[in-house]
């Protein structure tokens, strides 16, 4: 069953970067683009477990820092590489609080 998790203010993540959150037993990478859009994915790259939150962020694209595997953040599908990532619904409330939905 879907559960909502409040992760605190979006501003704790620098513009255009990502950070990792521990939610229960799960690690989730959360990204905040320069346009103010937020995304959430699994924390580790499926290739060699690189920390995705340390990657380079585009408008809706992420490049893993270890071997440059590239993912579409809206769908989680791979743009290069052979395997995609899990993506999770996330939104910002009016006061900037991040709300993540996990099953």
């Amino acid at each position, binding site marked *: 069953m879907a559960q909502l*998790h*409040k*992760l*605190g203010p979006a*501003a*704790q*993540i*620098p*513009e*255009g*970067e990502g*950070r*990792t*959150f*521990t*939610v*229960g037993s799960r690690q989730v990478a959360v990204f905040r683009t*320069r346009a103010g859009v937020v995304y959430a994915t699994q924390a580790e790259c499926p290739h*060699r*477990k*690189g*920390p995705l*939150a*340390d*990657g*380079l*962020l*585009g*408008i809706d*694209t*992420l*490049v893993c*820092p*270890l*071997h*440059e595997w*590239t993912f579409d953040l809206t769908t989680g599908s791979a743009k*290069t*590489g052979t395997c995609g990532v899990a993506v999770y619904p996330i939104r910002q409330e009016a006061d900037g609080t991040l709300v993540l939905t996990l099953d």
Partner: protein
Amino acid sequence: VQKQRLVVIGNGMAGVRTVEEIFARGGKDQFDVVIFGDEPYGNYNRILLSNVMNGSQEPDEIFLNTIPWYRENDIKLHVGVRVTHIDRISKLVHGQRGVVEPYDKLIIATGSRAFVPPIKGILNDMGELRSGAYGFRTLDDCRDIVAHARRVKSAAVIGGGLLGLEAARGIMQHGATVNVIHLSGSLMNQQLDVPAGAMLRKSMEQMGIMVHTGKSTTEVLGDDHRITGLAFKDGGTLDCDMVVVATGIKPNAELGMMCGLTVERAIVVDNHMRSADYDVYAVGECAQHRGMVYGLVAPLWDQAKVLADHITHKDRTSSYNGSKLATKLKVMGVELASMGITEPTEPEDEVVQFSEPTKGRYKKLIIRKGRLVGAIMMGDLDKVGFLMQAFDRNTALPDERLSLLFDLGGPSKKVTYDEMPADAQVCNCNGVSKAMIGASVAAGQRTLKSVMMATRAGAGCGACKGLVSELVGWYCGGAMEEDPSAHYYVPSIPLTRSELNKVVREKNLRSVSSVFDALCDGKVDPGSKPALASLLSIVWRGEYVDERDARFINDRVHGNIQKDGTFSVIPEMPGGICSPDELRRIADAADKYAVPLMKLTGGQRIDLVGIAREDLPAIWRDIGMPAGYAWGKSYRTCKSCIGSDYCRFGLGDSMSLAQELEGRFRGLDSPGKLKLATAGCPRNCSEALVKDLGVVAVEGGRWEIYVGGAAGAHIRKGDLLTVCDTADDVMKVSGRFIEYYRQNAKYKERTYTWVERLGIERVRAVVVDDADGICAELDRQLAAAVEATYDPWLERDENKTENQFKLKLKVVS
């Protein structure tokens, strides 16, 4: 809009490739396509027939487009239907069995067949090749030859050109003895000169093929059932049980002739590949352009593109202007390449030649006015990629002719691409094999970049990029396309480095996001961010608006990310010199933070490996030394030998110079990393000859500066830039070199590539002789850049972004 009907006669490489080019230009929406093929198959790669013949490939491996491909692309295919005539008045194509197709546009791509010379007894009563005699053009020919060759003792191939030798190789594989009968005095006389032909003959004979040159065949001997031999003009005879005719091709131009098109040797076309009829095109071996009929595949690719440009109206200025003939092939294990003419024809033609008959190596270049007009290479094709490009583009050749024939220095001994096993690992960083590159080309990739994107080959250290490029070319069979973005600074912006330098200045773009806004409509290519950050910091120095998200993670937290997400800490240690006090602090910090590994680096420094990001600020504080910049695209370090203070051979004070260099250049961003070294004498204990910039003391108190050296993924001895009288001069010239490199190289282009690309003469002219009059400006710009550097480890006390040194934030249950 009503679609037009496009009928293509010929289901070979020319016809289908043209259709693919038309589709690539949006032609699927303009045309309903019908293809006639008189062979009962899909479209296959005729060039590989010799592999089928010698058993190295199965027939189904050489198909380019199988029957389902036609269905998926809504192409109506008539297989096994020969077209009987074209009615240009009613615009109808008539085929066997009553098949009729109307057309709006017609493409004739009927190819060619074996030319059969007038030899008595070679044809039967029907005018076809008699039983036991074969052409070598189709998959069926190939199967028939193989089937027959297995049953006979002796075969004769008439024709010692490329096709004939390929056929001979194939037949030999199946057990028959093979004789090659050639009219000319020398094998492959279209592509090779006499000495090369003689060398090839020797190789053939060593493999057991009997070669008869200067022989004109007059008669095929035998009865109604079987062939028994050949008779020659000189009165001699030869016993054989089968004959393969490979004496050239004859264009299939009869359809064109019957419907009234202009036909000479083949259907005459203009620069748009149009025949005399505005709606009828011809392409490939059945087309004659400016008197030439091409039997190779590369011209066909060019013709297909031009035809497609016009028929789709995509580019009406497109023009086919003929092709230069260059071919690279392997005949019976002998590698050959041939371009243009085989003998000099003008008095001023310059011939550069090397011959080593015992090893079967032969190289000959014919140069006219500094440009390549002909080449023959045999036995060693190392330089062929470069030569083919120079020939095709008519570019000026380097003055050092020797370098055109040989790779001077550096490791050589390349295996040929044919011999290279399919599972051979080409890219050792990303584990990409030769076969994976082949699969990517087969899936439609045609440029180095697209293959790199699809396979990641060459995207690691980059050392294999040249090999990947050549393999892409090899798999494309000459249809490799150049990627224009190869010259861009970043792929998402169509500007070179110098153009981009200019634009960011003119438009006053000081941050990476402003560049994307101004030049890419706000579209952000994340992979380009670090490259743009590097360029902007070099252009704007202290006035650069430093958006930290544009940096690679290493540059955000000032350490090198390791495979487990931890970082390394390497403090500055110029010349490898440190005090006991510093050493103690490093050791204490390693204890305190339980550092898993402490190691000496190649740059004479100490590396603390496996540091959690959260611990970085504290460990830097404890160590109390400046950052060593061991993570960045920047000046790294300067190593040194012991120099003149203690060494009994030392001629110059290399340690002091190393410290001075590091003091000046530390923290400078650059397109690629800069590793330096100083050596106190020419013994070079610090390996200064293989550094981006190396300084070597020589007798007389002077210093040599070497640039563009490398000893990593790539090995190259640096080029001597100049000899300086004083250490001050060394500082000045080094600074100019570094600044010139910073401003002009592509991102990630190391000095060993950049110096080689510009040529050491050019670099020397600019930074030593001030030929461009920019040295004073370089000095000023470098001084300003040095002024803007700072120790990033001081950010431990003043973070630049929220949670700069934390990866993991809130924990919620």
